[in-house]
């Protein structure tokens, strides 16, 4: 056997050990999914955090009952301005309170309906953003699952080529395929790992929005008198 070919086999062996470890890891990938759909019934939901698709007024609002179907706020320019100022996550909660206070001062005579409309607008906009994120997480999970499948399948094919290589029955064509598969496997594993690292952050996003809406609702309530 040629030196180069020996080197290749050695590399292939270490790669196969590596990919075996990753394949075992991929099986573990099922663990958070199992945990996750214990909270929700969506088997495709990859997050440990429970899947709460839509936030409702009753979860957040401490004032008089409000109707989520009431879209009067869409005609209220002051409310829309306030919501545009306080909804972005980059605006710290200390600042949002100042904006709400200013708004409350401007609408002292008719404060309750104004704050109710502000809450409904916040709820609507937050749900819109969360819906997009939750949809994205679903697609993310589907892509990650199909990538996991491909890694496991390619690992199986590589193992077959390794056997043939050791037995000396590997054809030239198969040898070329072998090399391509190894490269593909390496890339797939890298992408899979990168995505896995971002999963925790991705899954936190809907929760962070839920936390923010709750905090903003409490700030509105302070001036609801």
């Amino acid at each position: 056997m040629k030196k180069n070919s020996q080197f290749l086999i050695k590399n292939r062996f270490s790669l196969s050990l590596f990919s075996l470890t990753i394949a075992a890891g991929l099986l573990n990938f099922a663990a958070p999914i199992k945990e996750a759909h214990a909270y929700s019934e969506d088997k495709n939901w990859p997050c440990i955090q429970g899947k709460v698709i839509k936030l409702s007024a009753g979860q957040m609002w401490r004032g008089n009952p409000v109707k989520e179907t009431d879209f009067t706020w869409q005609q209220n320019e002051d409310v829309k301005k306030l919501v545009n100022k306080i909804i972005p996550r980059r605006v710290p909660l200390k600042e949002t309170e100042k904006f709400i206070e200013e708004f409350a001062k401007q609408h002292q005579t008719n404060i309750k309906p104004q704050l109710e409309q502000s809450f409904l607008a916040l709820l609507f906009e937050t749900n819109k953003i969360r819906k997009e994120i939750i949809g994205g997480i679903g697609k993310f999970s589907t892509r990650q699952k199909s990538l996991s499948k491909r890694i496991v399948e390619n690992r199986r094919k590589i193992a077959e080529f390794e056997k043939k290589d050791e037995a000396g029955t590997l054809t030239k064509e198969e040898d070329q395929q072998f090399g391509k598969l190894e490269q593909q496997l390496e890339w797939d594993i890298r992408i899979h790992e990168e995505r896995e690292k971002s999963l925790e952050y991705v899954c936190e996003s809907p929760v962070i929005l839920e936390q923010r809406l709750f905090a903003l609702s409490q700030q509105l309530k302070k001036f609801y008198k």
Partner: protein
Amino acid sequence: MKVQLKQALLATALSILTISPLHAYTVYVSNEKDDTITVIDSKTLKVIDTIKVGQRPRGIILSKDEKYILVCSSDDDTVEVIDRKTKKIVKTLPSGPDPELFILHPTGNPLYISNEDDNMVTIVDIEKNKVLGEVPVGVEPEGMGISPDGKTIVNTSETTNMVHFIDSKSHEITHNVLVEQRPRVAIYNHSGSQVWASSEIGGTVNVIDNEKREIIKTIRFEIPGVTQDTVQPVGIRLLKDDSKAFVALGPSNRVAVIDTKTFKVEKYLLVGQRVWNLGFTPDDKYLYTTNGISNDVSVIDIKKLKVIKSIPVGRYPWGVAIAKD
């Protein structure tokens, strides 16, 4: 002027009295994401200390003599024992993998731990630091309860959707009761006549007759303005006289107050976000709720059925235990 000052002082004193519980108890809250326990003084309603513990602390209880705090460090696969005076971990107990919830025998020993990952209930002698036995149960065991006479242990299995009744002497399962999807907490009432079990996905609480080992009532929750999928019952606590039950309803951010005679919900109290577990002060006057994602605990005045305070704690507060001093 003096009169005005006196009136002002009196008003301040009265307002303090109305929001401050009179007895000073110590409240311990496990913070799942911070790996800490927050210590709260129940009189001032202020955080007085933070104790660093193992990874992912969840279930938390006190030893019978209340000298020690026991906490499930789920990701370390141990139960840690903390001296309440020194606030130091004095020993770790063998717990089996991924301990989540546990309960002490009414005599103070042994400890029964549910191990989510290997479908077992582990029985540990906490004085000898020794595993006394393991009981195979359904898939993903979770809630642990024990009858007041200590003869029967109840355990829920999340995936099998069952409440298992285990004989505490023989360590054998004697009865299985099928409940709704993903049962979490199971708890005996104080008279020992009923077991209350919450089903997180089912969105219900099942009341089981202890003698017949049959469901006698399924309680459902309908909260105005809240979508049904966010109603996820988990923690349950009953007053010592068994007159009222309190149920934590997860992402709906509500605690339900139930009349135990009629099984009707009297009130839904809005607390913090994702309310999971509950704990009464020893005098039954206040109820503490751990709010998973608003990172705080809410304090409920039982007589007024009102939330009187929200206290910021660590990240992802999970369990709560309250000591008499």
